[in-house]
C-alpha cells in the first residue's frame, strides 16, 4: 500500500478485465434476446416469429470486445494526471463566437445557391431552422428563466392549428395569421403560466408535460373544430408579397415566377420557404438577444439563479415568469404557423411528447441559455437521423453503411450520451454577461 509500491506503468489485471467484459456481454445477451433475437416475419401473408441468433452472437461479441478495449484503455490512462482526463473544452470567446455566428449566417443565406445543394438539402435545412427557432423559443423559458417546460410542443401546436383554422374559416393568408398565431400561443403560455406559478423543478416539469398532452388530446378529440386525427389539409402556402408560388395563377393574380419571368419550378417554393424560416429565426434571435440585455431578460436570469433573492429585491416573480412563458410560447407559435404552411397539412400526430423532448434536448445539449449552442445542437439532432438514412443509399460502401442507416436511432442516442459525457454542461457553456463594466469605461473614455 506504500506509495513507493506504485508501479510506474499501470499493470493490467486481466482476470478482472475479462470478468468485467463478460458481465457486460451477459447484460447485452439478456437485452439482445428479446430485442434483436426475435423478429416478426411475414410468411404467406401471415405474421410469424422468426429468430436471428447470429445477430445476437455478433452483438454480444461486439459488446465483449468493446468493453474489454474500453477498460484496457481506461486502466492504461488511469496513471495519467487528472487534468488530462478533464472533459473536453472548446475555448470560445466572444470574438470567436461572433465570427462563428457570422459565418453561420452567411452560410445559411448562401445555402440554396451552393453547388452541392439540392432540393433535399434545402428541405432538410428548413427542418433544422424550425428546430433552431423552437430551441430559441424554449431557451427563453428553460435556459434564461430556468423554468423546466416539458410541454413546449403545445405552443407549437397552438401556432399551427390557429393558423390552419384562421385560414379555413376566414380565408386569411400566412402573413396575416402569423402575428395572430403568435398572440394566441402567447396567451396559451400565460394560461399555462398561471397555475404553475408556485411550482418549480420536477413539479413544474410534470404539470407542463400534462399541459402538452392536454393540448394534443383536445386536438385529437375535438373533431368538429380540429377534424380530429384526420387533421387539417389545404393549409395555404405563403405568398411573396401577394404572389403565390403556383404554376397557373387564378385570373388577376400574378405568380412569383410570372413576375420575375422565370419558368415555373416547384423548387422555388422550397427555397422561398427556407428563406422565410431563416428570416423568422434571425428575427427571433435578434429579439431574444436584445431582450436578454433589457431589465426583463436580466430578471429572467436572476429568477433562474434565485427566486427568493428576486422577491427580496422587489422583483415581481409573477410577471417575470409569465413574461417568460408568454414570449417563449409566442416564438413556438410562430414556428408552428410556419410548420403548418410548409407541410400544408397538420394533424395531432406531429405534436407528440417526442417533439417536446427533442426540443428540450436541443436546448440542454446546446448549453442552457446559449443561442449558438442551440443552433449546433439542432443541426446535430436533426441531421444525424437523416444522415443515417441517407448513408444507406450510397454505392460501394452502401451495404456496410446501410447497417448504420438501420441503426440510426441507436447512433442518435449514442451521440446524445456522448455529448453529455464529454460536455455535461452542453456544447457551449460560456455565458456572455448582459453588460460589462469594461465596455462602459471605454465608452466614457
Amino acid at each position: 500500500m506504500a506509495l513507493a509500491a506504485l508501479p510506474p506503468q499501470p499493470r493490467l489485471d486481466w482476470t478482472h478485465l475479462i470478468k468485467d467484459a463478460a458481465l457486460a456481454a451477459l447484460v447485452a445477451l439478456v437485452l439482445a434476446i428479446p430485442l434483436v433475437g426475435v423478429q416478426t416475419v411475414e410468411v404467406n401473408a401471415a405474421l410469424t416469429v422468426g429468430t436471428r441468433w447470429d445477430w445476437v452472437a455478433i452483438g454480444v461479441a461486439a459488446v465483449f470486445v468493446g468493453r474489454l478495449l474500453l477498460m484496457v484503455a481506461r486502466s492504461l490512462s488511469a496513471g495519467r494526471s487528472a487534468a488530462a482526463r478533464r472533459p473536453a473544452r472548446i475555448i470560445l470567446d466572444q470574438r470567436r463566437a461572433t465570427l462563428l455566428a457570422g459565418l453561420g449566417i452567411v452560410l445559411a443565406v448562401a445555402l440554396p445557391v451552393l453547388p452541392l445543394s439540392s432540393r433535399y438539402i434545402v428541405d432538410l435545412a428548413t427542418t433544422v431552422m424550425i428546430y433552431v427557432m423552437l430551441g430559441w423559443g424554449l431557451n427563453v423559458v428553460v435556459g434564461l428563466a430556468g423554468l423546466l417546460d416539458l410541454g413546449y410542443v403545445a405552443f407549437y401546436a397552438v401556432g399551427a392549428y390557429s393558423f390552419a383554422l384562421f385560414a379555413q374559416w376566414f380565408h386569411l393568408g400566412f402573413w396575416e395569421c402569423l402575428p395572430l398565431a403568435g398572440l394566441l400561443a402567447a396567451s396559451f403560455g400565460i394560461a399555462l403560466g398561471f397555475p404553475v406559478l408556485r411550482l418549480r423543478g420536477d413539479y413544474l416539469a410534470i404539470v407542463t408535460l400534462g399541459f402538452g398532452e392536454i393540448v394534443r388530446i383536445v386536438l385529437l378529440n375535438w373533431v368538429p373544430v380540429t377534424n380530429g386525427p384526420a387533421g387539417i389539409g389545404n393549409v395555404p402556402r405563403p405568398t411573396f408579397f401577394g404572389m403565390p408560388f403556383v404554376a397557373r395563377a387564378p385570373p388577376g393574380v400574378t405568380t412569383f415566377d410570372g413576375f420575375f419571368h422565370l419558368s415555373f419550378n416547384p423548387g422555388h417554393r422550397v427555397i422561398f420557404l427556407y428563406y422565410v424560416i431563416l428570416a423568422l429565426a434571425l428575427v427571433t434571435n435578434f429579439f431574444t438577444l436584445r431582450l436578454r440585455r433589457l431589465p426583463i431578460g436580466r430578471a429572467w436570469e436572476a429568477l433562474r439563479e434565485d427566486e427568493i433573492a428576486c422577491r427580496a429585491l422587489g422583483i415581481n416573480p409573477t410577471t417575470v415568469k409569465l413574461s417568460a412563458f408568454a414570449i417563449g410560447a409566442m416564438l413556438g407559435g410562430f414556428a408552428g404557423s410556419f410548420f403548418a404552411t410548409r407541410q400544408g397539412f397538420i394533424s395531432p400526430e406531429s405534436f407528440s411528447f417526442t417533439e417536446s423532448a427533442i426540443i428540450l434536448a436541443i436546448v440542454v445539449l446546446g448549453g442552457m441559455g446559449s443561442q449558438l449552442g442551440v443552433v449546433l445542437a439542432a443541426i446535430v439532432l436533426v441531421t444525424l437521423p437523416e444522415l443515417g438514412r441517407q448513408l444507406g443509399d450510397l454505392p460501394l460502401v452502401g451495404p456496410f453503411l446501410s447497417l448504420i442507416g438501420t441503426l440510426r436511432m441507436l447512433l442518435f442516442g449514442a451521440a446524445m450520451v456522448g455529448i453529455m459525457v464529454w460536455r455535461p454542461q452542453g456544447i457551449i457553456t460560456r455565458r456572455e454577461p448582459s453588460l460589462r463594466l469594461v465596455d462602459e469605461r471605454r465608452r466614457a473614455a
Partner: protein
Amino acid sequence: MSTAAPLLDIEHLTMRFGGLVAVDDLSFAARQGEITAIIGPNGAGKTTVFNCLTGFYRPSIGRLALHRPAGEFLLERMDGFRIARDAGVTRTFQNVRLFAGMTVLENLVVAQHNRLMRASLYTVGGLVGLPGYGRAEAAAVVKARDWLDRIGLIGRADHPAGSLPYGAQRRLEIARAMCTDPAVLCLDEPAAGLNGHESAELNQLLRDIRDDHGIGILLIEHDMSVVMAISDHVIVLDYGRKIADGTPDAVRNDAAVIKAYLGAAEDEALPPEIARDLRGRA
C-alpha cells in the same frame, strides 16, 4: 437613547407555526439613522422576525408599521416583493443568496430592476431603443460602480458573483440590497464566516451606510464584537420573547440577558466566545 424619528414600529408581533410559537408578542421600534441589533441564542426567533418583516411569512398577529415621507405602510398586509419595491424594506440572507451565475455588476443592476423597467417602458421602449432607457441603464451602471468602489470589488465587476470569496459575497449582497434604495435594510448575520479583518471592514461599511444614507438598519448577529461595536440599540430575544431592549451597554449588563446566554446555573453550556465577549465587556 437617540431621539430620531421612529421609522419602523413593530407592535405585538406573534408568529405561530402550528403549536410552536416562534415569536411571541414582540414590540419594538427601529429609528432612522440607527443600527438596531436583534440578538439572542439560536432558535430565539430572530430570523422569523425578519421573515415577517420582509413578507416571507405572514404574521399570525401584530402590526408592522413603516413610516415614510410618502406615507405609512402596513407590512403585514403586503406581498413579499411589494415590501421591497414599494415600502423599501430589503434584506440579506443568512446563507448568501447572490445570483451566482451572473456577474458582480449584473447582480447590482438586477437590484435596480423596477426603476429600469419603468425607464424601458416595460420592455417596449428598450426594445425599440429609446434614448431614455440608455440613459437609465448608464445611470444604473454608475450607481453599481460606486458601490463596487465602496466594497472594493471594482476589479471583479465582470466576474461571476459565485466565484468571489465568501467575505466579498457578503459585502456584495449588502451592496445589492442598497442598490434598491431601501428605507430599512435588514441584515441576517452579515458577519457569519468572516475573519477578524473582514469583520472590521464590515463594521465600517455598515456605519458608513447608516451615516451616509440615513436609513434604518436592522441587524441579526451572533458576533458580539460586531453587535457591541456598531449597534445604537439592541433587542434581545429568547424563546420568541423580548427579554431586553436598550443601548449595548445596558443590555450587556442585563441580568435576564446573562441568564439567557449563560443559563441559570450551567455556565459551561455557553459558547466560549460569547461568554468571553459578555464578560470582557461587562
